């Protein structure tokens, strides 16, 4: 083993993933990840909002602090790290880089003008560990890949490159499923891209019993002869068979080998339930046809009609985006040769179900699940820093053909059909009729037996000889509120149990807190003394 190391980092909305590589033998030696993001909030906009509210510096600091914690767990001497590359969406990368983020928080010119924001170029950049604040060798270079367009970032570039479709003839659809799905339609190497803001339901949020993927969550369901078989993530995040239940009553029909009670349902689990519900007729949009209008998966884990509406709205964004892209690029969806699903959700979801619910086009004959391409690209960059220039070239070329859905009339029309389906139960033949009326193509029929290619066993294929370490991030911010009467309303109302008050000290765990989209603590304070912002003021003083 040599003593020259590199680190590859992927900053995702739901956590940080880092890998150490031995530069002598060009191999991964260890992996460390977190299961949460250090900033409060459940999606990037929450992170962004938090960062804007508390100031970029603080947000950057929290993020880097967490990354430093993670890389300390990589089992290498950090003083010997020569290179580090990051990848992720523009918001995460900008927070990492500590550059302007406010342009990502608002749409249109007005806010940008008023706040006098200039968009940073977000080009490929080489910077230093000192600049960023990473606790590694001072001489280490840090590589930051370019973004294509402000809402389509290096993560999208990664999936396009790692899927290998840019060099091939043919028509390919590549998407990274997340709250914001990046979608690329590649026609003989020419890329049409868009970002479909599907929403947090895709990751199990805004769903009453939804949770990010973590041990004890339901991540998939399988239709069996006598009911739905539940698949639950174990301590190592491997899916195991749980009970078989009758989804309309929750009655356990057959006990599984994981008999621990599930603690929630993940995004992939929600999609599975939606898919099976539609298939079996338990869901007849927008209604659930059980006695209490719920789908029961286990004691106290269920989906409500409101959940179904939310997931419907989110999935609708996918289908509407696919149709819009196809219309703009002037192809038919069933001409697509293969479909690539990137990212962790794209890896762990059952493609048959994605196909059934419209997350990928129903005509997808060849489906590739390519895993975490962001981390893969960060690895490629540290092994070959010259790649950064190539990436910049590719990004420059691509900037032209980005389709901004916000100004697309096509998208708006199709999305209102989606709303009609999910909120009002418009049947699909009528949907197709409307498409025809608008002069658009129809939804292609569903293929019955798609070929599914799962390139790796896990979304991170190679963990290295030291294996995987899951790092708990527990950044705590502390403050005290003057005139607090200690009624504890704020603590009671916190849905995430992120808050404690002891001896006049109020503490919040930022990694658990939902942040700016929540603020139930502040809103529920009868004395109006709870000020979320105060946490951060204190933090800054501490610096």
């Amino acid at each position, binding site marked *: 083993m040599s003593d020259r190391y590199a680190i590859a980092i992927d900053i995702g909305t739901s956590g940080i993933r880092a890998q150490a590589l031995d530069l002598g033998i060009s191999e991964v030696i260890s992996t460390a990840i977190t299961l949460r993001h250090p900033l409060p909030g459940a999606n990037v906009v929450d992170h962004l909002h938090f960062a804007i509210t508390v100031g970029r510096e603080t947000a950057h600091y929290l993020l880097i602090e967490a990354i430093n914690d993670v890389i300390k767990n990589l089992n290498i001497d950090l003083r010997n790290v020569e290179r580090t590359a990051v990848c992720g969406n523009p918001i995460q990368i900008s927070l990492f880089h500590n550059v302007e983020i406010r342009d990502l928080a608002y749409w*249109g*010119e007005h*806010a940008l003008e008023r706040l006098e924001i200039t968009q940073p170029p977000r080009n490929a950049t080489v910077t230093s560990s000192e600049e960023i604040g990473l606790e590694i060798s001072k001489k280490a270079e840090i590589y930051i890949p370019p973004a294509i367009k402000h809402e389509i970032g290096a993560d999208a570039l990664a999936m396009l490159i790692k899927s290998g479709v840019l060099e091939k003839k043919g028509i390919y659809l590549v998407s990274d499923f997340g709250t914001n799905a990046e979608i690329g339609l590649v026609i003989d190497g020419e890329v049409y891209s868009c970002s479909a803001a599907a929403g947090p339901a895709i990751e199990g949020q805004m769903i009453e019993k939804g949770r990010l993927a973590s041990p004890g969550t339901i991540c998939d369901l399988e239709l069996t002869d006598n009911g739905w078989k539940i698949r639950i993530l174990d301590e190592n995040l491997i899916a195991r068979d749980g009970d078989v239940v009758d989804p309309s009553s929750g009655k356990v029909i057959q006990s599984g080998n994981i008999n621990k009670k599930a603690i929630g349902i993940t995004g992939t689990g929600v999609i599975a339930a939606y898919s099976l519900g539609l298939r079996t007729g338990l869901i007849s949009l927008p209604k659930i046809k059980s006695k209490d209008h719920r789908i029961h998966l286990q004691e106290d884990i269920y989906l409500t009609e409101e959940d179904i509406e939310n997931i419907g709205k989110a999935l609708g964004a996918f289908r509407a985006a696919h149709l819009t892209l196809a219309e703009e690029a002037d192809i038919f969806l069933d001409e697509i040769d293969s479909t690539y699903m990137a990212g962790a959700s794209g890896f762990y979801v059952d493609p048959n179900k994605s196909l059934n619910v419209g997350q990928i086009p129903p005509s997808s004959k060849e489906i590739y699940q390519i895993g975490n391409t962001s981390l893969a690209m960060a690895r490629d960059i540290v092994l070959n820093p010259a790649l950064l220039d190539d990436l910049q070239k590719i990004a420059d070329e691509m900037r032209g053909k980005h389709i901004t859905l*916000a100004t697309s009339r096509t998208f708006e*029309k199709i999305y209102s059909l989606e709303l009609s389906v999910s909120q009002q*139960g418009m049947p699909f033949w*009528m949907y197709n009729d409307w498409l025809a009326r608008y002069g658009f193509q129809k939804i292609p029929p569903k293929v019955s037996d798609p070929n599914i290619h799962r390139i790796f066993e896990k979304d991170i294929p190679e963990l290295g000889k030291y294996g995987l370490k899951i790092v708990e991030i527990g950044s705590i911010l502390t403050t005290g509120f003057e005139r607090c009467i200690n009624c504890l309303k704020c603590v009671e109302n916190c849905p995430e149990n992120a808050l404690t008050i002891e001896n006049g000290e109020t503490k919040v765990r930022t990694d658990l807190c939902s942040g*700016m989209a929540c603020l139930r603590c502040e809103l529920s304070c009868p004395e109006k003394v709870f000020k979320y912002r105060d946490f951060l003021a204190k933090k800054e003083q501490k610096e």
Partner: protein
Amino acid sequence: MNNIEELESKMDQDFVAVRYNVELEGPAITPEKDPDVQAILPKEEPYRSIAMGVLHGDIDEALNSVKEGLEDGLSPMDVINDGLMKGMDAVNALYTKGFFFLPDLMLSGDAMMEGLKESEKVLGHKSETKGTVVSFVAEGDPHDIGKNLVVMFLRAGGFEAIDLGRDVPNEEVIDAVKEYKPIFMTGTALMTTTMTAFPKIVEEMQENGLEVPAIGCGGGSVRRDFVESFPMSVYGVEAYHTPKLADSIIKDKKTWKEIRKEYSEIVGEFVPEYD
């Protein structure tokens, strides 16, 4: 020779074969044959054709009938109230029944607006409406589908809706309040970063000594507790609630405080968010 017809006339079809698909979903009849719609549609021409144009979401059909009517010397107000509005009422009836969907509403709304503009040309000024409402999407926010629905329902409900569009700076909202003196205002935001515009707008209005009876704030990321944390505001749940809220303001002189308390009663249905 025509024996089969004689036989056929003797038989009760349902005794032999039931078309359960039709029983279940109701037969496909043209919208104008629906009994509720028949009760709404005017009987006389050209009002009937005008209303049918709106019902069919057919701009040309509606506009041509409106033009013909106006050329024949009908009063523009009659064209609006007895033709266009009746068409929209029929559309609403079918929407409520679940036979019409969002895109039907949008097309019919467009047809009605075109007819309205034509009538107002002849009228020489804006037509009398129940009142003026200003609608906007918060600055920095592109999500305008919900707001478009709000505007459509307001117009269908007989209100003049001033549509400020999306990404609307706060000053523009304030200016619109000054200019139109609306009886109601609606704001929509779908991003947590943009919904903060609402309290700021209220603050600025208060600073300028301006007031509206209520500001309905809605949109995906907005929650009731947030909206009720600043004055003058009411949390809006469904776009089709908007005309009912506006009605309660002009008819029953409801204030924002009262609407907050009586939301479910005003909109006439159970609203979980107000439970």
